[in-house]
């Protein structure tokens, strides 16, 4: 990736520093209080601005509209961009999973058609993977795609699709051959979301957010060149998505620009809670603060270590489940500490419409989110024990059986 004529990282950093100062507003102020839809509109505007300024798609190849630079360039840019309003909602899954997978698996034509529009902020992508009938058993999808003349016709339903309501396209995993075994008869499609037959419903979560969507497909018609990868080889593409998902959640993805998460999803501000509850000098509280700080630091360190090991070939990509599992433990540490530091104040607000310290309690309701999203921690433990440590695989009743013969629950 690096060559003699690549711009040195420090020069790139200084150029980014100047550009950011002149072109982007400071973080925080502008996006506060925006509706969900407005957040996405604003993200597209910001991305278009970054693209025009020459700071979009830093690690994507220049053939597809990126800059073709290195992780070190991206890291330097992220450090410089930390203080500015960035379109961070586009990081996961749009850039770091969908575009990254298109890069791995898309035909040359698909890559040239779609990736530049993602980098410029014109198109936003989401994933249509999980289905209402099964969570961790991702390959057990029953959404079907059938040939009809030169087209494909898709019927079925998907769930846990992040921000599908704001997306233009979804990577949609379907079953195209029921005579093959579970993983063998799948095909991945690039599906536009704003076409007849696609219905998107937002799912209300326990903390009041509604980012996840349920998506229904009724005779959605797709042209033959919508296939990403090969027909009946959709699992290969899905596996790349899972890899990129782990990579982005674990902090190893080079395609994430700015901070990883949208501001509201970052950890609770524990020091603020400690001050507001009047306990910043309480030794018990200080121990809590230090414990969380330790988890924050080690989470970055373990992501860096495993990312480097995978990049150098010292570890298999399946080792990406290690930082994924660690990230979940870190979130537990954060949310649990917030509850303990907030104490009795965690269950009431400061006024009728301000949760105040009650935010700690509200966040705690979705504490398990980080242990479920992106593949549950149970699946991560299976992957680590079986693929990283080589321990025996779990028995599976659907192994080696045509998928039409596999037992399914009522749904």
């Amino acid at each position: 990736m690096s060559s003699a004529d690549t711009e040195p990282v420090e020069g790139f950093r200084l150029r980014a520093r100047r550009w950011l100062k002149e072109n982007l507003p400071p973080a925080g102020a502008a996006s506060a209080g925006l509706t969900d839809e407005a957040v996405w509109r604003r993200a597209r505007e910001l991305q278009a601005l970054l693209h025009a300024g020459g700071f979009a798609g830093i690690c994507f190849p220049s053939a597809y509209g990126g800059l073709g630079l290195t992780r070190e360039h991206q890291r330097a840019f992220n450090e410089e961009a930390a203080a500015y309003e960035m379109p961070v909602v586009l990081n996961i899954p749009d850039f770091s999973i969908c575009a990254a997978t298109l890069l791995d698996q898309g035909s040359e034509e698909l890559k040239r058609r779609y990736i530049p529009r993602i980098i410029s902020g014109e198109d936003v992508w989401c994933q249509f993977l999980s289905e209402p009938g099964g969570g961790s058993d991702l390959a057990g999808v029953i959404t079907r795609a059938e040939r009809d003349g030169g087209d494909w016709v898709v019927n079925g339903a998907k769930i846990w699709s992040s921000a599908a309501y704001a997306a233009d396209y979804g990577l949609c995993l379907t079953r195209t051959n029921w005579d093959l075994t579970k993983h063998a008869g799948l095909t991945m499609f690039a599906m536009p979301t704003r076409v007849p037959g696609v219905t998107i419903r937002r799912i209300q979560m326990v903390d009041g957010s509604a980012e996840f969507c349920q998506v229904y497909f009724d005779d959605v018609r797709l042209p033959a060149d919508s296939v990403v990868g090969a027909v009946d080889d959709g699992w290969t593409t899905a596996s790349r998505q899972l890899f990129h998902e782990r990579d982005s959640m674990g902090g190893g993805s080079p395609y994430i620009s700015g901070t990883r998460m949208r501001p509201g999803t970052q950890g609770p501000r524990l020091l603020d809670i400690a001050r507001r509850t009047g306990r910043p000098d309480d030794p018990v509280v200080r121990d809590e603060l230090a414990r969380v700080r330790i988890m924050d630091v080690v989470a970055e360190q373990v992501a860096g270590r495993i990312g480097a090991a995978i990049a150098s070939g010292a570890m298999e990509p399946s080792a990406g489940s290690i930082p994924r599992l660690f990230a979940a433990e870190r979130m537990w540490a954060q949310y649990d500490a917030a509850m303990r530091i907030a104490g009795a104040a965690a269950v009431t607000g400061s006024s009728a419409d301000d949760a105040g310290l009650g935010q700690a309690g509200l966040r705690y309701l979705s504490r398990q989110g980080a242990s479920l999203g992106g593949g549950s921690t149970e699946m991560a433990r299976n992957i680590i024990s079986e693929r990283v440590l080589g321990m025996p695989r779990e028995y599976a009743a659907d192994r080696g059986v045509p998928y039409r013969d596999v037992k399914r629950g009522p749904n």
Partner: protein
Amino acid sequence: MDIGLTPDQRTFLAATRDFLDRTASGERLREQAEAGGFDRAWWSQAAELGWTAMAVPESLGGGTVSGEPVADLCLVAEELGRHRAPGPLLSTSAVLTGLVRSGDAHAEEIDKILTGEHLATWAVYRPDQGWAPLPDATTARPAPGGGYVVSGAADRVEYGDLADVLLVTARSPDGPVQVLVPRAAPGVTVAPTWSLDATRTFARVGLVDVAVTPAAVVHEGPDAEAAVEAQLLTAATLACAEMCGAVAAMFATTLTWMSDRYTFGRPLASYQALKHRMADDKTWYEACQATTWGAARALDSAADDAAELVGVAKAYVGDKAPEMLQDFVQLHGGLGVTWEHDLHLFLRRVLCDRALYGTPEEHRRRIAAIMAGRAA
């Protein structure tokens, strides 16, 4: 160990591992442990391999493998942990880290420690108390005509009973001082103490009106404070690397055991409940390695946040290593709590490394203070 060692580091690591495989086998260790220490000739051989050279600049006869002294020392410490080998690497490295801060003022002593001719150790712990950088149990009274008269006591002095020279941290009316005291000096008493780690001995040192010449004064005032901190950070990082090595050894042993041990007609390794425990242990082990090397790199690059990163490593590894070893004990069943199985030797080593140079609790206090300072 770190991802991406240099070729020279790999060669050095292989030589270190080979040396320990040959000289620190199970029976030999048990013999040495029962005799209460280690073979000085063995330590001289280790010194020839370069174990004592890393912390010392080339101008004073030392030198590193990679240009990164703490990283190189961590390679050794990890192998010591993996072999649960004896040897005064932590205390020697701490003392050298302090001495070299005074340039060539103590070149003669440094040279003796480098070759293994002298065994040096650090007397810093106030008896029975936790880590305190500036202990008040040992006092240094300025002597007429220069130097000090030192009185007091310290315990947890690593290999104090075998040492030739002590680096004593004390308090003078004008602030902290560090002085070199020969173990044989008048007024010095050294009494071996019980040690949980069978492969490492400790002593309690008593000092009664010990005369210290001006030439033997190593640091005074703010220099002493900074040196104590540097010594602590080096020793704490090496303790982390030792714990990583100990966990690595017993992780591998446990994984093999789980494949070989059958219950109800299938290997232990096939039970999902146990697989998930090993997945957690693997994750924590990699986290221990990552944070230990993060600390080592921060020290080697003199990073602004080195103190915090060492604290993070020592607190994290110090908490997790014993927890993982206890999990390995549990996975071994009753065998795990027998004297015959090596597990307890590693557990002893890890508990000792957890305790020395700042417990997790003490390092969390330091981290909280750093956080408060940053927020203020």
